[in-house]
């Protein structure tokens, strides 16, 4: 095991995991995205919004809610080259798939895919997870991702 591997393994323990942007998601009670829903027109939102943005909605009634669980891969792309800042990634860069997923709760959301590009297929069932996207200063910075079922 290299020093780097050891560091990464340490970082994967809960104490050293840190969300890449605070407040957007959590993993303590399972992987959840912190969003909202309008109880008038049932539109889901992530991240949270202050008022409903559906032009057909009669009255904005936004309540906080969380999203997680399973969904279906609507389509995907691949980052064959590293995106520019403010994206951060572990070196050497490994191409990853980016999914657009329709969660069963009615939210279409983008996120990195955990599994390698070669096994991706449109229509696959997936599950929301929280996983590291890069390591820095002995910490694992996490984000939401999707894992093939």
């Amino acid at each position, binding site marked *: 095991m290299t020093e780097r591997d050891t560091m990464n393994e340490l970082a994967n323990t809960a104490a050293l995991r840190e969300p890449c942007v605070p407040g957007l998601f959590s993993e303590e009670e399972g992987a959840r995205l912190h969003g909202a829903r309008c109880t008038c027109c049932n539109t889901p939102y992530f991240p949270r919004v202050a008022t409903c943005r559906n032009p057909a909605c009669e009255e904005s009634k936004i309540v906080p809610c969380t999203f997680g669980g399973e969904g279906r891969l609507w389509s995907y792309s691949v980052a064959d080259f590293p995106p520019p800042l403010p994206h951060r990634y572990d070196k050497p860069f490994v191409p990853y798939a*980016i999914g657009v997923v329709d969660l069963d709760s009615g939210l279409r959301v*983008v996120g990195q895919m955990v599994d390698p*590009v070669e096994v991706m297929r449109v*229509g696959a069932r997936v599950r929301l997870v929280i996983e590291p996207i890069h390591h820095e200063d002995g910490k694992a910075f996490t984000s939401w991702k999707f894992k093939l079922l």
Partner: protein
Amino acid sequence: MHRFGKTGDAIVGEKSVTELCRHAVDMAMKDAGVSWKQVQAVSAASSRFSGGKGWGLNGNDIVEDLGCTGIPVYNLSAGCAAGGNAFNIGYSLVAGGIHDVVLVVGGEVMPKGMIQTSGVEDANDPEYLRQRCVGMPGPAFWATLARRRMFDFGTTEEQMAKVTVKARKCSESNPFARFQKAVSLDEVLASPYVSNPLRLFEICPVSNGAAAAVICSKEMARRFTSKPITVATSAVATIGFDDALPRSLAGPVPSGPSFHTEAKSAVMKAFERSGIGPRDISFTELQDNTCYYELAFPEEWGLCEPGEAERLLEAGETAPTGRMPINPSGGFVSFGEATTAMGVFQIAELTWQLRGQAGGRQVPDAKVGLAQTNGLGGNATAAILKR
């Protein structure tokens, strides 16, 4: 126009955006027979993205360079649709009777590499969240849509590569294109993926370049020419609430197919306002950031039937001499993208085509041309010109 190139090459060298625009503006004014003193307003396309990131053109610099006459300057920002927006404002000022002669200009000296859309670490900026939490480079948007088309219609990677082969063939006879050399299908398929399934030769790189146009009222135009090109209409639209691709991180799952709602809305408005329908269009210049759009857009706008684009492409019907010519200029794939110049570059190409001045890429007997742009943030424009 100033021919497109990249910083340091033999075409644009180290020229500033003002120099590039000056060249394009001088050419446009000379072509129109209009002098700078006759220009009553400038509508300029400016590249500013959400989060404050941006560079490039400011219309006030153009006016200063040409001589401060005190005329109004409008700086329009709409991502890659900015050139189309600037044209729309120029058109609206003339059509609305505010001014008789308006100059429209767009130009860029682009930063190298993939466009960095967010320069600030602000959790309220959707671009920042998307890049920080996901890491979704620009071409990934196009690749997502292209992958879905492959699923829906069985489009193959080879068919997408054939769009590039067609585009680059057109570019051979366009003196303003950055690339003016044809490429073979094998060469396209041998180029590396930028965002699978899209390859390097199927995606427009960033370029430096500039384009300008002069819009006059009908009465004023008669003083300069007996055969003016008429702007039938110009329309602007933004993305719909139920668009298939979330503008930020997420959106509601749409109830049905809802691709490119901003582009479709702009084009439909243009058809409606002008009374010109898809069957009346002689040729189209559409925003082919990637070859995928040449397949998807014509179907969505009714230029052909859904799922028919690949067959038309392979039958040569999208070439300048075909039934449905698309991007006879060579398109973004041959020019590269100098963001704010693109909507104006399309107007120049439409004008040359309608006058019969397009040389080896000429659409025979072109009577009506359609131009369309798309821009980050959910922007789109459409214009219809006729002779």
